């Protein structure tokens, strides 16, 4: 295959052999594979989690069939390659919604489980894995395991957030959430600093969906200014599913187009606009949950060198050290001038995921995009990593391309227990990277 970029961030480059899976009843000849394999869906993971350099990717996106949908109970059983967007097209008109959704619809059901994704409602609903009723896991031995919290419970726990390493998820059954309308009552509030922003999360603890965009190029008192957004599904509007028009980024942008100044200008505009539009309103669910999906292939804005995403979470700490840590990270980013215009702040709740390697933990999470500026970006990550380490925080594998093996092993102490569930024929570039060195 000619394609080089298999991850959303475009880093690292890798070459693969691709096997397309068309029918869940087909037999895969794992024994005939000459290299290790990894399931591959829509490739929205950012770093090397979806990559298996020199290996085989088993592409699952043609496994996108519904098996059963009970519109009374909201239980949906699908093949694992179906996208979340496709699920919504089926269930929204009938009054149901995904229990948890990440910021893009272009994620497969299997990918959502394997990365145990979270959304704006983590403080209320936990991760995606909390709503999985069961799934069928195909091992390279040919054995198919139906895993639930009680049946093959060990494989259930290992596969949720298991990064596709425990086998191939063929089908999955999830519990959806009832909605009365497809509109969101939204409440936007501008805040002038990090403390003010985090206070807003506290005040809106009972709001189902909360998230904030942060301007990370400001300094001093304005450090961490941003726009807080809270939302609830509307009780009154119709539930007709509206198709929205998509824009596309046709080419990779030249690398000079994203710099400190252009991003600063963008951030100033975005903040001013958000401030002006502060207050209550009603919006369709798509722009609320998936603002970036409107711009197809937006990753190309970062050009051919690609970009990194950095997402971490840090616990609050007994004396609010978590807040200070986030402040220090924003400070470091602002000082570095490395442009990130997608900085997202969110507070995680304490609902435990069943997944062994699940990322979210009660505390504050910050997600940022960084264009690839080589060593300069790496040095910034080193500084951010140090802060995360100090706070006993964690990095998010689904978005990672850089974390040190020692950090991973520290942050995910169950990794060795997890390793026992890895299918002997499965591997990924990420896994090799973070387990090669011992802590």
């Amino acid at each position: 295959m000619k394609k080089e970029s298999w991850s959303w961030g475009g880093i690292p480059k890798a070459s693969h052999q691709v096997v397309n899976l068309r029918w869940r009843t087909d037999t895969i000849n794992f024994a005939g594979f000459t290299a290790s394999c990894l399931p591959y869906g829509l490739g929205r993971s950012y770093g090397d989690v979806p990559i298996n350099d020199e290996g085989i990717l088993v592409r699952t996106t043609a496994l996108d069939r519904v098996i059963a949908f009970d519109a009374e109970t909201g239980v949906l059983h699908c093949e694992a390659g179906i996208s979340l967007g496709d699920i919504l097209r089926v269930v929204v008109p009938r009054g149901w919604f995904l229990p948890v959704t990440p910021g893009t619809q272009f994620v497969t059901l299997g990918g959502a489980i394997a990365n145990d994704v979270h959304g704006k409602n983590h403080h209320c609903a936990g991760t995606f894995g909390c709503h999985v009723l069961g799934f069928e896991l195909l091992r390279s031995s040919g054995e198919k395991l139906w895993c639930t919290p009680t049946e093959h419970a060990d494989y259930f726990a290992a596969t949720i957030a298991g990064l596709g390493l425990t086998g191939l998820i063929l089908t999955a059954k999830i519990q959806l959430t009832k909605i009365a309308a497809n509109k969101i009552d939204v409440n936007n509030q501008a805040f002038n600093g990090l403390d003010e922003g985090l206070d807003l999360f506290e005040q809106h603890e009972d709001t189902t969906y909360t998230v904030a965009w942060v301007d990370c190029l400001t300094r001093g008192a304005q450090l961490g200014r941003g726009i807080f957004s809270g939302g609830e599904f509307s009780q009154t509007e119709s539930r007709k599913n509206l198709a929205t028009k998509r824009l596309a980024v046709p080419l990779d942008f030249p690398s000079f187009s994203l710099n400190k100044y252009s991003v600063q200008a963008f951030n100033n505009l975005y903040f001013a606009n958000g401030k002006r539009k502060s207050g209550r309103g009603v919006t369709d669910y798509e722009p609320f949950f998936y603002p970036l999906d409107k711009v197809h292939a937006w990753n190309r804005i970062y050009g051919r060198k690609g970009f990194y995403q950095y997402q971490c979470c840090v616990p609050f700490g007994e004396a609010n050290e978590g807040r200070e840590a986030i402040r220090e990270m924003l400070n470091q980013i602002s000082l570095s001038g490395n442009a990130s215009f997608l900085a997202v702040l969110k507070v995680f709740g304490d609902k435990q995921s069943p997944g062994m390697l699940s990322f979210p933990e009660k505390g504050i999470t910050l997600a940022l995009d960084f264009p690839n500026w080589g060593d300069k970006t790496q040095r910034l990550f080193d500084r951010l990593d140090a802060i995360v380490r100090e706070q006993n925080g964690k990095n998010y594998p689904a978005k990672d391309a850089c974390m040190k093996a020692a950090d991973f092993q520290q942050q995910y102490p169950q990794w060795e227990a997890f390793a026992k569930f890895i299918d002997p024929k499965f591997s990924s570039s990420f896994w090799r990277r973070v387990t090669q060195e011992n802590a």
Partner: protein
Amino acid sequence: MNVLILGATSAIAQAVARQFLLSATTPVKFVLVGRNDDKLALIAEDLIGRSATAAHVQVQDLTQLDAMDACISRAWETLGSIDVALIAHGTLPEQREIEKSWELTEQALRENALSHMALMEALALRMEAIKRGTIAVIGSVAGDRGRQSNYIYGAAKGATAIYAQGLRNRLTKSGVHLLTIKPGFVDTPMTESIAKKGLLWASPEQVAQDIVKAVQKKRNVIYTPGFWWLIMTIVKSVPEFIFKKLSM
């Protein structure tokens, strides 16, 4: 709305069936015809899950020309009547291999032309009698001009298009709609062995949206995606004395 899909396991057919459900304002019932019982069952399940009120499976080898009339008759009975029939089966033979064998050539023509003609005829008879209905048949841009790289496939698709054109002429007075669909490169299992993917390649979903829109608007002939109309207009206008020297 009662929909019959012939060659229901093809990627385009599956996408079209789903698109009918997404755009339907009335309940949709399907009969799905194909060779593979197991695969048809998976598709039926999917369509029911996506809100179809019924999805019946009918196992049939669509190259048995003598059986086509009975095949349509059975589907018609199952559904009560047929509003839309999509003829979507086909194969993409390897030109270099089959040009040496009349047996394989004949088979390719049966799979990609004669079978479609027999089905169109059987559907036309019944729809003419009730003076309504739509027959949509999938041809190909390859049928617009013969090229050394796939002229047997192209001849079959061209024959289907001419047959459909004549039949459309006949059906007009009874109000029956016949749509000829000419897709370009579509990323499906049929084209999996062709490695090149690029700007000209479309997904089955894109093509399905065009097809359902064309059924609703009662179009006669469509190219999908639409830019193929321009490409083929140019390809068709190249004088033969030049065209024959091109390596296409």
